[in-house]
């Protein structure tokens, strides 16, 4: 018996090309005769465009054209918002590809220049003279929703794009009125800049003779891009081909369809030549979506014995200057529905107000709404513990939902699939040595050293998701996936998927699923993705859904093939189907093991079709559409131990323990990689990342000189553990693990720091916890 491929930590097959620089990204693709597009961008956060003079630019060497929104006219429809939250009085203000009369954030496109060379295009863009009439700007979402704030869109009264309410306000009030204790906090979920390693890029090639448009772009969901590009250009969807070549990370920022992708498409149609645009890092920080940006007013009710009774919050969610593709769904459906977490808490209420501001548009960023929910929950649990004088670990232990195997309905109406929260919780505490730490902490304090511990229990909803639910919550698409498993005559496998992985290692993981199901060697299986013409329809890679949803489609397609193979093998061996046994890619006849047909032999015979059973079609290929019956709910417990240098405010993250349960792990190395990256990203929100704007809407953290990306030396070696609780509804039991690290780590690290600072009297600091802020908080508490 060979080692099982499912569960084996084989190396990522993606890595050789990525590490050696042989991967081919959008910008690497060179087409003859290509024109380069540079975009003239607004330097103001809010201004009327008085005039645009492009004459000097047009006269420059190599410049083919300069276009403004007047030139585009109705050649491009506005970019759509594709998550239309019902019952929220949603307004979807027009989002033109180039600003019409008014700019709404720094970086808003005003004109495009097309030139034969990227440098010349930039020179000409600098030479376009735009006369602006500056208007007052507003960045803070709560302020933007307040009296007297500048109006950003005439048709969005009070800047309020939507108001979404979850739960029964009166019932919630009754719980809070009767509770022994209520704690409250104003939590700032600062804006984050997604910072994928590869910035965005797009290149369009329109063929006037065939009227076909090919768009290469940095997309997490080429089929959605095709759909939107077809809608905004008016081309038939079957004349649009979208290719996402190698995509260097996205974290959600490559889900939306942006003006730039529409503009290269339009310009290529207009000029009949290919047009290319690649973002600079400075542009990336200005125009690619940002994440988070909530101002939350949160309360939690509890009994004196530590029983959690309810949570309620008013959330002002900054949408930026326009509503990005999925933006309204993030602080609502993906946020409020997570308010129960892993606890038995019975009352939830959320009012989420989507507010237009003069910031860069926001949208899904790794975790998307769920980190913002988990943070507020875990922060409030620590506040409850402090208020009633109980150990925060005891409060959590007391309220955890007991183990369940198939369905647990919570107050938000979600039905969690499976979980054993106490097991993961106790395992993590054991790994951390919680009791010892508390003693160590006390003695350190006596020496004037400040140690702290943060413990987060979490569950989250991913593997998005049942299409019926998508429809009910206004998502303008399905959330199923499809896949084809195609076996060549020589027994090699091509798996074609509609999802579009971009760094996660799915080419490896998904091949392992097929290898497990069909017995082909894993190296004989290729996973093909990212091209709307080559691959079947799919809704994309986000929401930790590719392994759960595409993986299920592949498992089921493989099972169909296996059924066919079994019948064909029986026929070829002149045996009864019921007598066929399968093991390790080989079909044999019960009782006579020397008579066997390998899966490769069966595949060949299916292709040759010389000798098929009655009624069986030739070929060896199966497709499967898979619509998940429920979300999947991974869970776990994370623990951070920190020391704060009270003299400087510098935080030293000394230990990080993560016990995650994503069901059976297909590839433990890849799971660990996802958790490592996720933890770093989430911890960075607590410790150092945060976009800062000036009052007039200039992004002050416009480069990595000021925007603090996490660095490897900020982190200890992570101590990972796992529990395994299969999802009952999934063909191979797996849950997603792409976002758990990010979701759990921010409150873990934050609570650890505040725990360390408790003896000094510090109770709250807005994230990120820079040393300057920590130091000031210590000074104020001492004063």
């Amino acid at each position: 018996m060979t080692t099982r491929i499912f569960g084996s930590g084989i190396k990522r097959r993606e890595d050789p090309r990525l590490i050696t620089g042989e991967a081919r990204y959008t910008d690497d693709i060179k087409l003859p005769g290509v024109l380069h597009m540079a975009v003239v961008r607004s330097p103001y956060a809010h201004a009327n465009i008085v005039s645009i003079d492009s004459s000097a630019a047009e006269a420059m060497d190599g410049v083919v054209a300069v276009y403004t929104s007047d030139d585009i006219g109705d050649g491009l429809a506005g970019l759509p918002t594709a998550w239309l939250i019902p019952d929220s009085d949603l307004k979807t203000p027009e989002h033109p590809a180039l600003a019409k009369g008014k700019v709404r954030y720094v970086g808003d496109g005003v004109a495009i220049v097309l030139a034969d060379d990227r440098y010349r295009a930039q020179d000409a863009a600098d030479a376009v003279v735009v006369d602006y009439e500056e208007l007052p700007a507003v960045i803070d979402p709560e302020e933007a929703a307040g009296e007297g704030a500048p109006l950003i869109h005439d048709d969005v009264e009070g800047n309020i794009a939507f108001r979404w309410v979850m739960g029964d306000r009166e019932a919630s009030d009754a719980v809070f009125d009767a509770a022994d204790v209520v704690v409250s906090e104003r939590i700032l979920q600062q804006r984050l800049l997604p910072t994928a390693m590869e910035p965005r890029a797009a290149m369009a090639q329109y063929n006037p003779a065939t009227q076909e448009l090919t768009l290469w772009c940095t997309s997490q969901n080429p089929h959605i891009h095709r759909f939107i590009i077809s809608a905004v250009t008016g081309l038939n969807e079957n004349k649009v081909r979208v290719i996402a070549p190698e995509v260097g990370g996205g974290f959600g920022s490559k889900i939306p369809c942006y003006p730039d992708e529409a503009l290269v498409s339009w310009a290529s149609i207009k000029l009949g030549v290919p047009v290319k645009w690649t973002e600079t890092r400075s542009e990336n920080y200005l125009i690619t979506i940002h994440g988070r940006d909530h101002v939350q007013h949160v309360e939690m009710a509890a009994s004196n014995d530590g029983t959690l009774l309810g949570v309620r919050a008013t959330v002002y969610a900054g949408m930026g200057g326009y509503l990005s593709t999925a933006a309204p769904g993030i602080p609502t459906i993906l946020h409020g529905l997570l308010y129960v977490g892993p606890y038995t808490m019975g009352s939830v209420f959320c009012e989420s107000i989507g507010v237009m501001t003069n910031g860069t548009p926001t949208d899904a960023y790794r975790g998307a709404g769920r980190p913002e929910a988990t943070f507020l929950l875990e922060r409030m649990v620590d506040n409850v513990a402090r208020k009633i004088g109980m150990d925060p670990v005891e409060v959590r232990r007391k309220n955890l939902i007991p183990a369940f195997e198939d369905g647990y309905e919570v107050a938000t109406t979600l039905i969690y699939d499976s979980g054993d929260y106490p097991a993961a919780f106790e395992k993590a505490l054991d790994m951390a040595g919680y009791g010892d730490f508390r003693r160590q902490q006390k003695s350190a304090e006596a020496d004037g050293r400040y140690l702290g511990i943060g413990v987060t229990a979490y569950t989250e909803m991913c593997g998005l998701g049942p299409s019926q639910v998508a429809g009910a919550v206004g998502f303008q698409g399905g959330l199923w996936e499809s896949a084809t498993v195609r076996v060549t005559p020589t027994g090699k496998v091509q798996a074609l998927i509609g999802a579009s992985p971009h760094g996660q290692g799915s080419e490896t993981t998904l091949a392992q699923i097929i290898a497990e199901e069909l017995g082909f060697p894993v190296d004989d299986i290729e996973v093909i993705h990212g091209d709307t013409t080559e691959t079947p329809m799919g809704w994309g890679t986000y929401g930790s859904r590719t392994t759960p949803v595409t993986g299920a489609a592949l498992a089921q397609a493989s099972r169909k093939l296996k059924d066919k193979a079994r019948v064909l093998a029986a026929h070829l061996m002149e045996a009864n189907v019921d007598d066929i046994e399968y093991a390790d890619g080989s079909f044999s006849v019960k009782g006579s093991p020397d008579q066997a047909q390998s899966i490769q032999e069966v595949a060949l015979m299916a292709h040759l079709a010389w000798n098929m059973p009655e009624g069986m079609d030739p070929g060896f290929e199966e497709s499967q559409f898979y619509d998940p019956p429920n979300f999947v709910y991974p869970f776990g417990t994370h623990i951070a131990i920190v020391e704060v240098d009270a003299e400087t405010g510098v935080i030293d993250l000394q230990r990080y323990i993560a016990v995650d349960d994503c069901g059976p792990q297909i590839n433990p190395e890849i799971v660990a990689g996802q958790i490592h990256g996720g933890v770093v990203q989430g911890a960075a929100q607590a410790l150092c990342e945060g976009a800062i704007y000036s009052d007039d809407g200039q992004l002050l953290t416009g480069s990595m000189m000021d925007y603090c990306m996490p660095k490897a030396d900020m982190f200890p070696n992570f101590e990972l553990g796992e529990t395994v609780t299969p999802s009952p509804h999934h063909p191979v039991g797996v849950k997603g693990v792409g976002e758990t690290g990010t979701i759990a780590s921010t409150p873990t690290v934050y609570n650890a720091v505040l725990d360390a600072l408790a003896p000094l009297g510090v109770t709250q600091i807005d994230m990120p916890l820079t040393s300057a802020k920590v130091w000031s908080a210590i000074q104020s508490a001492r004063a």
Partner: protein
Amino acid sequence: MWPNKFDYVRAGSVDEALSSITDDGKFLAGGHSLLPVMKLRLDAPEQLVDIGRIPELQGISANGGLTIGAGATHDAIATSADVQAMCGALASACGQVGDQGVRNFGTLGGNIAHADPASDPPTVLVAVGASVNIQGAGGSRSVGAGDFFVDLFETALDDGELITSVSVPDLSDHQSAYVKFPHPASRYAIVGVCVALKMNDDGSCDHAHVAVGGATVKAVRCSSAEAALAGTTVDDAAVNAAAEAVKSDISEWLAGDIAYPESYRQQMAGVFLKRAVAVAQG
């Protein structure tokens, strides 16, 4: 990412560099400050005169003091046995610049000509009283490091003048240290403190050199902190007094950014002075 157009000349000698440079030209050394600025189009010189391969600008020599060629890289300085022996703080400062790639390209001449207030080497040069040797079309001159740095990104260099080398006194009988509090984003200095102590046999401090950078618009020599240490045994009381004094020494030069404001950096100068003294005393 897309610099404006420029002409490029590679100079083989100092004379050739000086005769090639035009009014709108700039010298190009390691390119690790100049090119980023050009890529962001914050600067657009019409001509670059590459001085990176001029033999006269290379090398480090020790002869009663150090003469460090303007073209010496941070790495060459950090790993030079002579620099480590005569001015350990400078070797340490250069070893803390950026990462290995930056240290392999960035030069001392380029670093000080650029005069980024958060740079590391200037703080040491100012503390120890180094001098900057400059050559121009009209001849050569030498300027004390304390006078060389004028303000944010501003030096005593005139247009078309080239730094040829930096002279550093032999402080092998001092205990010196450069301690840096790196900005978490850029890893430049939030504050950098250089201390060099000359101790007498009786355990008292003959004199001290102290300078602060990062927290200030330029590296600043801190005379009252030096006075607070001189004549003492560098005990806790003296070090605390120096830590207080350093904050007033830099008070008129403070600089900060959105995340690490002036007030915080000023306080940290005191904290890091104490840490620098501790490191110097080993």
